[in-house]
């Protein structure tokens, strides 16, 4: 029973981390229609910058500065790269971000080398906050939860209560009209892209010490961010939050409990074949939930796209 509580907390941490990435991405996607494949690369840049800064100025300056640098780089990418490619259409935009992801990974290896960086949790937070039945919950995880929630509330406030937020929301749906009203839509795009990538940077800063800072960290995260925003519904901040938490909990629970396929099949009344070793389906019978935990979100996404293409909270298709 205690394990359920522990898993709830772990899933929450994973989900909120995913949310910080998908929040920026879903804004960028719905506004510009860009599937930004390099989004996870900005997350990686955040971790590496923070590591570099933390050597000189400590963790907290890293947390403050690294996202800013990442955001500026992101805005630069939008201004000098994406905007140029935008005129050619969506596929070239996508390929551009694809190439950019490759390039950033190579650049990171070029500068920091190929080994894992010894980027670690700051000493202030390097203790066990509390334990549940022998499972310790590190203070850093609690810290991660608070940071993510603060960012979510901040974003929600800006988007719904401020003037800038109103303009952004309007530009999401009717960019031409907003432009005609005298707002500088390209600037808004650049700003949103910058903020989105900066959020990814924050995620990198706080995930780097826990999940490791290495050149493959963007690839490991891979396309799961897209899955999140598609499940949640494109352009929906609430959708991104719900989908992130859903994915966080599903994968955590699937990994924590060894549910075997044979148990499920037996449960619904299909008996295990006698000579399992020779059966062509033997691998299907021996599948356990931890094995497939990380592909469950993809199954969920395909199902959602087939039955509800707009996503859980989305209002429009594609």
């Amino acid at each position, binding site marked *: 029973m205690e394990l359920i509580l522990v898993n709830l907390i772990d899933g929450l941490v994973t989900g909120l981390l995913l949310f910080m990435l998908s929040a920026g991405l879903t804004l960028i996607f719905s506004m510009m229609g860009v*599937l930004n494949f390099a989004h996870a690369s900005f997350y990686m840049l955040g971790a590496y910058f923070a590591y570099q800064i933390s050597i000189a100025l400590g963790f907290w300056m890293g947390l403050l500065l690294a996202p800013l640098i990442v955001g500026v780089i992101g805005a630069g990418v939008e201004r000098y*790269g994406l905007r*140029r*490619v935008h*005129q*050619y*259409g969506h*596929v*070239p935009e*996508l*390929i*551009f971000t*694809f*190439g*950019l992801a*490759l*390039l950033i990974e*190579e*650049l990171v290896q*070029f500068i920091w*080398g190929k080994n894992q960086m010894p980027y670690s949790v700051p000493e202030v937070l390097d203790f066990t906050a509390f334990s549940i039945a022998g499972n310790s919950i590190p203070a850093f995880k609690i810290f991660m939860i608070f940071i993510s929630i603060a960012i979510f509330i901040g974003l929600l406030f800006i988007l719904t209560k401020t003037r800038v937020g109103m303009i952004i929301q309007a530009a999401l749906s009717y960019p031409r009209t907003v432009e005609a009203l005298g707002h500088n839509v390209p600037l808004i795009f650049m700003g949103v892209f910058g903020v989105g990538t900066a959020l990814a940077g924050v995620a990198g800063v706080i995930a780097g010490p826990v999940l490791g800072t290495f050149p493959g960290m963007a690839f490991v995260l*891979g*396309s799961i961010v*897209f*899955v999140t925003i*598609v499940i949640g519904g*494109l352009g929906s901040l609430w959708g991104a939050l719900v989908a992130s938490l859903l994915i966080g909990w599903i994968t955590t629970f699937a990994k924590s409990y060894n549910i075997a396929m044979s148990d499920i099949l037996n449960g619904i009344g299909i008996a295990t074949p006698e000579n399992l070793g020779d059966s*062509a*389906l*033997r*691998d*299907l019978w021996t*599948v356990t939930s931890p*094995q*497939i935990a*990380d*592909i469950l979100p*993809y*199954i969920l*996404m*395909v199902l959602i*796209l*087939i039955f509800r*293409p707009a996503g859980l909270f989305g209002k429009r*298709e*594609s």
Partner: protein
Amino acid sequence: MTDQITTDPTKPAQRMRAGSMTITIGPWIVAAIALMAMPYIFTSNSALTIMNQMWITVVFALAYNMLLGQGGMLSFGHAVYAGVGGFACMHIMNMSDLFAAMPLPVLPIFGGLFGMGLAMIVGAFSTRSAGTVFAMISLGVGELIAACSVIIVAFFGGEEGISGDRTYAMPFFGNEFLQQIDVYYLTSFWVLVSAVLMYLWSRTPVGRMANAVRDNPERAEFLGYSARWVRFYSFVASGFFAGVAGGLFAINYEILTEENLNTASSGVILLVTFLGGVGFFFGPIIGAIAFTLLQTVLSLQTELWAFYAGTLFVATVMFFPGGLAGLLMMHVPAFKLGKANLLVVPYIKTLIPAAIGVFGLCALVEMVFHFRHAATGDDEMTVFWMTFDSHTIMPWIIAVVVTAVGFGIMRMTAPAMKEAWNAANTAGGKS
């Protein structure tokens, strides 16, 4: 450079028109002769291996372009159709009774059929809409099947994959396909056949309707065509040829692994196709050749090959969205006007300094890399067949000067090239 000639990807109708070739048999005969002559020019086994890899990529990229270029469907998981076709061929290779009664050149057909079968299953639900929904379903299905490859060991063989021996097939006119050269001709034959078939497909009413659906599905529906079924047919045909590519892979390497299915392979084929140019039928061919050379030959020369490849992709997308093929086809009007000769001198004046500048820049990159990462005492390095000490100032100055001079001259002569370009593409005037 004026925009009147460049094809505009946002106006695909125009793109296709520019790409349409007259149905002449000429280019195919030239291609066939070139394919046959190639082994006489490059006799080494490694060149044959690399060419085989190229032709397989050509088939796969052409199949992919049936979706992306002709049908407007962006797939993130197309490697699975080639992979599953290849795995099926591998299993056939291992059924010794059946395989011993089958000549090897027939095998890719089975790969195609299995690829097509899978495409029919997936296409049944994924082709209902295009755009993001299709792309995301393809991503999800791709990830699922790639993940299955390590779970379903009976079919995919787990991480080490499954392997077989092509020489156990029924001898084909006495040939057992022991040597690379035999396999080369088999692959070449299939490349030619597949390319012709895919070209003919693009001329059929279904192929034409794929273009129409890509450009304006609503209008196509009003004309009485089901956009969904048109997409489905394109998807299935593309799956077939992807499967053929997988079958050729099985024959060539005699092993298939998870690598043939994963998203990285799917991403690579997208890059290959785009690099070559999606607007033209022959674009993916150029892309496949260029990328294979980058990946296989450049990686022998430098550890930083992926860095250069990434730069090339980003540069291509930013400056030549038509890909390499688009770049080539930009010159067609000048040739038609008979003014291509006007371009020769300005090109030499601008592009050679530009190339020198790029080489200088590459040298600088290599030197920085060497300086940072080489072992202590290993001060010597070789760039462009020149060996020098990277820890002395002189090579740095030279590289910087070469780069600066190269790009400087390019900047100086670029306006002249632009003028010449305009002149060459303007009808009339003195001739």
